[in-house]
């Protein structure tokens, strides 16, 4: 039997009979040309998150982070605010998933603080950072105003969050300004990602800026609508029922 014939048949043959092992990897796949077996795993199915219950945050954490999010993206004449848009639901599900677990990050040690241009070196996960960061935020508000963040006036909340943003109001176990950056990034994600992830209710974030959403072909408009206002009702991949 010629080697070429073996390959054609899609069979694996040990190079020498002295090796006892047989080539049978379970996850690694071997695709032989012409075998007709070239099939990829389909991507995970699209799913709408279940907003009826919390999956990571506690009720108290959800309430606090919702109040913070509504300072960052408030309800006003341009549209609904972050909580109404579902940003807390969005965050809750993100923290329960691979993002919350920092599943893709390099998390081996040693952990050494470097120069600013070397980037964040902490190996704490977003889920962990929210758990400790929200406690810190609650304490910092209590220390500054003598009452809960939830009970502050709008102006007090804004001033307080400016102090967190700049780091002028410090935390004890993590950098308040880095926690702020994560809050701001996540609330924007919730407000502007596809509604299937739990936020951007009624595509409110997309309507704010005139973004058409999950449209895959603009050839008709590239020239005819160049430089013009396009009034289009946005579409999502999967709207919430």
């Amino acid at each position, binding site marked *: 039997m010629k080697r070429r014939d073996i390959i054609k048949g899609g069979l694996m043959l040990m190079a020498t009979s002295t090796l006892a092992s047989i080539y049978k990897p379970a996850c690694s796949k071997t695709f032989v040309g012409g075998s007709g077996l070239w099939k990829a795993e389909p991507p995970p199915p699209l799913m709408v998150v279940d907003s009826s219950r919390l999956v990571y945050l506690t009720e108290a954490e959800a309430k606090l982070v919702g109040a913070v999010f509504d300072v960052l993206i408030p309800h006003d004449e341009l549209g609904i605010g972050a909580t109404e848009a579902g940003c807390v639901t969005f965050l809750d599900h993100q923290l329960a998933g691979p993002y919350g677990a920092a599943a893709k990050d390099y998390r081996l040690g040693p952990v050494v603080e470097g120069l600013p241009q070397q980037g964040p070196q902490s190996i704490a996960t977003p889920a962990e950072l929210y758990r400790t960061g929200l406690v810190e935020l609650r304490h910092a508000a209590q220390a500054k105003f003598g009452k809960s963040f939830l009970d502050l006036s709008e102006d007090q909340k804004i001033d307080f969050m400016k102090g967190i943003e700049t780091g002028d109001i410090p935390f004890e176990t993590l950098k308040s300004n880095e926690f702020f950056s994560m809050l701001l990034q996540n609330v924007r994600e919730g407000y502007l990602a596809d509604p299937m992830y739990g936020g951007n209710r009624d595509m409110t974030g997309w309507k704010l800026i005139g973004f058409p959403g999950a449209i895959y072909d603009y050839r008709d408009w590239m020239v005819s609508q160049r430089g013009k206002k396009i009034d289009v009702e946005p579409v999502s*991949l999967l709207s919430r029922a």
Partner: protein
Amino acid sequence: MNYKRPKADVVIIGLGWSGSTMAEELTRAGLNVVAIERGAWRDTTTSFPTTRNPDELSGSVRKDILQAPVTETYTVRNKANQTALPLRKFNNLTLGNNVGGAGTHWAGASWRWQAFDHQPYTRVMERYGAKQLVDGLILQDWGVTYDDLEPFYDRFEKIAGTSGTAGVINGAKQPGGNPFEGSRTSLYPTPALERTRANLLFSEAATRLGYHPFPVPSAMIGAPYTNALGLNLAPCTYCGYCQLYGCGNWSKSSPNICILPVLMQRPNFTVVTESEVIRINTTPDKKMATGVTFVDSNGNIGEQPADIVITATFTLDNTRLLLLSGISMPYDFASGQGVVGRGFTFQTLSWGFMFFENEYLNPFMNTGALATQIDDFNGDNFDHTGMGFIGGAGIQSLCNQGLPIGMAGLVPEGSPQWGKGWKQAFQKGYQNYAQIQGQGTNFAHREQFLDLDPTYKDRFGQPLLRITFDYNENDRRSGRFVRDKCVEIAREMGARQVWGDSFPDRPYSGYRLWDSSHVQGGVVMGEDPKTSVQNRYQQNWDIPNLFVIGASSFPNNAGYNPTIVVGATTLWTAKAIRDLYLRNPGPLVRV
């Protein structure tokens, strides 16, 4: 459990652009080829359906289809006396992680480099002399010229279906194209894409200033096209889910749509997926390569013996594999001796950012490489006498982003980043933001290099690659020059608010927003074994059956993107293997 696969004629490590291009050439020549790929098998129809793909969160925000740092990362420092630390998250590095490699998600700018870029040493010495070089700069020719490569550029464009407007055909300038480009023997396979409003404003302003705008050649197919391998490609639809996404529309040149469907039909081709090569094996005297050792996704160690070993992983990993395998002499920064890891380059970016007052730029209608450029200040297209630097940049109106999460921070200077004021600023800014990118040269320097990190390890316990890089004085001078040109054009475009930035004015960081992912060198090709790892055919000087292909072979970066050059040099090497090496296995260049 250890196992050994049957011996192949050729083993190729990595099935991205260079690996699949090489596999197509060598299987067509009748060789039995096995590719070992770290990522999973991906096919266009199943993996990137247009009904699933337009999702910014999983795409450009979470980067689901890209290489993750947990799989492999790199440590970085600016200077050799600092401690390198790992990139725990990737920001500007956007690397491929599946069959197709970075060719699946790339932005698609499809440049031939100029004659100067392949022979910078000769050209600079002829025109200016050594006094033009800042201290420590390393300049060397590739050993292969633009004229050598032209037929291979031509062939690769016809595989990719590149869209564009020719500027020079057989030495004659053509209207609408790039008057500075190397002479072509044929038109671009497909016509240039439509321009955006921002592209047109740029083009008009640049023309008024006396410059020469043209459409950037692109991987986004300009018209229905049957490529050189007989595969049918479809016109781009400007959906805007492009850079960092796979294209399910068969509209962005990639190994997945341009090559792999053909390879899949050839019984003399096999790919082993989800298996990472950890070492290139050699004979004890290191005179010949014998194959590769890999770890599969069960943690089993496999061996693939082969007569020819071709390393076609990402630039950085090509260098790392040679270092991990003890092949060729590592570069020693202190003595300046050694070659592996030497000649590492990045990209020098400068910017002009602008906000208009009452435009509708409709940024959501875009592609990854939808840009109009001038080359008046690129490469050696202008006289550098007395300027204290060499090189320059392609200066382009780049319309590659319109997705809302990515643009949420782009509000006019002085606007709040959150609260009621942000909502107002974002609503207006989204339609009024435009940018001019100066994508600049970076030349090798004795203080820019790659080696193995002494501390940090990957998931298998092998040392990570360490990057020692900061911009050099040549970059600082060229960057500021280019930034001022970007700002000049932005003002001429009539924007209300304009500001510029030259990245070399601050230390290099892997976390800078809008920075490049282009890295080159480390396993450079050249004319002298003392200053290059491989000869002009990308054949290792010490081990004649080892070829390391990709941008790791480039001794310098140009003011362009690297992919088409990767394709052309791969085809050039494939021809050398077919026509020269197989007939007479051994060194193709004798010193």
